[in-house]
C-alpha cells in the first residue's frame, strides 16, 4: 500500500432494486472488484453511504460485519473457494452453521439447495472430485443456503469454459427468476448481457448504466 493512497472508486451512485440481476462491467483496474468488496462488507469505503435492505451499513467492526455478511449476503467467487476437506453438502451447510442452525436441519436445507443446482447425487463428494462447473454450482448453492438478500458473484465464470459458463449463468438466471437479487462482476460481454442491467465502470466512475434485454443462457446450453 505505502503512503500513497490510490483512489480506486471516485464517486459511485446507484441503486439496485430487489429482484434485479445486475452486471458490473469494466476492464481490469476499473474498480469493479473493489465495489463488490464494499458491497460485500469485506472492505470499507473511505466515504459515502451504503444502505442494504433499509439498514445503513457503516462503522462496522469485524464481528458486526460477519453477522451482516451471514444474514444479508451470499458470495460466489471466481475460484469457487470451497473448503477442500468438506464434502459438497458440508460446504453448502457451512453458512447455516454460523447461523447456529442445528446440524440436522442444516443438512436438510443444504440438501435442498444442492438439489436445486442439480448436484444432489454429488453431495458426499469432496470438491476435488467435482468439475469446475460443479464446484461453482456448489458455491452458488452455498451462497443461497443462508437465504441472503443479495447474491454477490465475483467473476463467477472467470475460471470456466464457455459452455460451463453458460450453465452457471443459466443457474443464476433461474435463481433470479425466483426473485433473488444478484450482482455479477464480469468483464465478459456475453455474460453481462445475460443480466437485466449492466453498469459500466471505468477508472472508478460509472460511465454507463443501462437496462438490457436479457439473453437467456439456456439458449446456448
Amino acid at each position, binding site marked *: 500500500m505505502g503512503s500513497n493512497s490510490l483512489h480506486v472508486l471516485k464517486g459511485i451512485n446507484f441503486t439496485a432494486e430487489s429482484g434485479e440481476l445486475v452486471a458490473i462491467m469494466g476492464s481490469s483496474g476499473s474498480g469493479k472488484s473493489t465495489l463488490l468488496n464494499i458491497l460485500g462488507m469485506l472492505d470499507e469505503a473511505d466515504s459515502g453511504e451504503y444502505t442494504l435492505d433499509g439498514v445503513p451499513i457503516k462503522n462496522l467492526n469485524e464481528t458486526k460485519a460477519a453477522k451482516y455478511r451471514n444474514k444479508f449476503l451470499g458470495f460466489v467467487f471466481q475460484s469457487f*473457494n470451497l473448503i477442500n476437506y468438506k464434502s459438497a453438502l458440508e460446504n453448502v451447510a457451512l453458512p447455516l452453521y454460523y447461523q447456529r442452525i442445528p446440524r440436522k436441519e442444516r443438512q436438510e436445507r443444504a440438501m435442498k439447495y444442492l438439489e436445486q443446482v442439480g448436484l444432489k447425487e454429488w453431495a458426499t463428494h469432496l470438491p476435488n472430485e467435482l468439475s469446475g462447473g460443479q464446484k461453482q454450482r456448489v458455491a452458488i448453492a452455498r451462497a443461497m443456503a443462508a437465504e441472503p438478500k443479495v447474491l454477490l458473484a465475483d467473476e463467477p465464470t472467470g475460471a470456466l469454459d464457455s459452455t460451463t459458463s453458460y450453465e452457471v449463468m443459466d443457474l443464476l438466471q433461474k435463481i433470479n427468476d425466483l426473485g433473488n437479487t444478484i450482482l455479477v462482476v464480469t468483464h465478459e460481454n456475453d455474460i453481462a448481457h445475460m443480466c437485466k442491467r449492466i453498469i459500466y465502470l471505468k477508472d472508478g466512475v460509472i460511465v454507463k448504466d443501462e437496462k438490457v434485454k436479457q439473453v437467456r443462457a439456456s439458449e446456448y446450453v
Partner: protein
Amino acid sequence: MKFIFDRNTWQEIFGSISKNKTRTIITVIGVLWGIFIYIALSGAAQGMNNGFEKVFKTVSMNSMFVWGQSTSKPYDGFKTGRQMRLKLGDVTTLQNRIPEIQFIAPRIVKGNFGSEPLYTVRGQKSGTYPVNGDFPVYTKIATKKIFDGGRFINDEDIEQARKVCVIGERNLKELYEEDEDPIGSYIRIGNIYFQVIGVHKMATGVSFDSDNAIFIPFSTYRRLYNSGDNVGYLCIAAYDDVDVVQVEKDVKSILKSIHRADPKDERAFGSFNLGEAFGRIMGFSKGMTFMSLIVGIATILAGVIGIGNILLISVKERTKELGVRRALGATPREVRSQIILESVFLTVIAGVMGIILGAGVLSLINNMTKDIDFPYTNPTVPIPYVLGALAIMVVLGTLIGLIPAQRAVSIKPIDALREE
C-alpha cells in the same frame, strides 16, 4: 463459554481435525511422546524408589552396628593393639546416656567374624551353621518373619536360659524331611540338644542374617559357651527423626570412655551406619525422580510447542479457508475459538493417549521385573502428577493455540480471499 459446550462447535472441530489426518497425527505424536516419556520416566523412578524401600523394609533404616577392634593409640597406661571387648553393661550405659536410641540389641555369634560355626546334628542329617545369642529386642531392629506355629526367642527364654532355638529356612531343608513339622523337635548344636521353637523365613532384600543362621537365647549362649558379659556386637536403632550419624559418633565416644581408649582413636571401635547408606541410595533415587520430572515436563513442553508450530503452519495453509468462513459469516471470535479449541482438543487427546500408553509400558516393565532380583516395585505416577501434567498441557495448548488463532483473525478476509 456456551460456545465450548455447543455440540455443533465440536462437530465442526472434529470435522476439521479428522479431515486433516496427517496434520493431526503428526501433532498428536508430538504431545503423546512428551507425556509418554513423562509418565514412563517418573513411573520408573517411583518404581525404583519403591523397590529400594521394599529392600530396606525388613530392617530399621535408622540403625547402626558397632563392634570392638584393637586400639591404635596408647592411652591411660595401656599399650596399642589392646583388644576392645563390648560388655553387656555397655548397653545400659548407652541407653541411659543417649536418649535418641530406641533399641539396642547386643548379639554374640559363633560362625561369623572368624569364629568356628557349630556342627549341628539331627538324626542322620547334619551341617555346620552360625549360631547367634540374641535378645527378643533384636526383632525390633531386624524384622524376622517366623513361619506359622513358631515364635522367636522371648523374655522367659532369656530369664530361664532355656535351651531353645529358632532355625533358618535352610536348616529346615537340610536337617528335616519334607513336610516334617520341626516345632518341638530337638537338634544337637555342638554337644547340646536344643528344642526348636520357630523357623525364620529368608528375608528378601537387606538382611543381617543368612537363611541358615540359628538363634538361641543370649543367656543360654553365655552359659553354654562361657562368654561371660562379652558381646559380639551391638545393633542400635535410633528414633526415626534422629540423625543416626550423630548417634554413631556419640556411641563410639561413650564406648571409648567406658573402655578407656584414646578419644581420638579411630580404630578402637568399628561401626557401620545403615541410615547413611540408605540415605545415600534414597538420595540417588530422589534425584532420579526429580530428573525424570524435569525431563518429562521439558518433553511435554516441546510437544506442545510442536502443536503450536503445526497449527501456525496450518493457519497459513488455511488462510483461504478461514477467509471463506469469515465471508460466510464467522466472527473473529468464532475463528479464534475454533483454532484454540482445535489446539486444546488435540493436546488433551494426545495427552490421554500418552498417559494410557505410559501406564501400559509401566505395567509391562513391572511384570517383567517381578521375578528378578532388581529393586523395582510397583511403578506408579501419583494421580495429582498426572492431572497436573494434563492441566499444564491444556493451559499450554490454549496459550500456544492463541498464536495461530490471533494470526488467523489478523488476516482480513478480503486479503485471505484475494486471488493468488
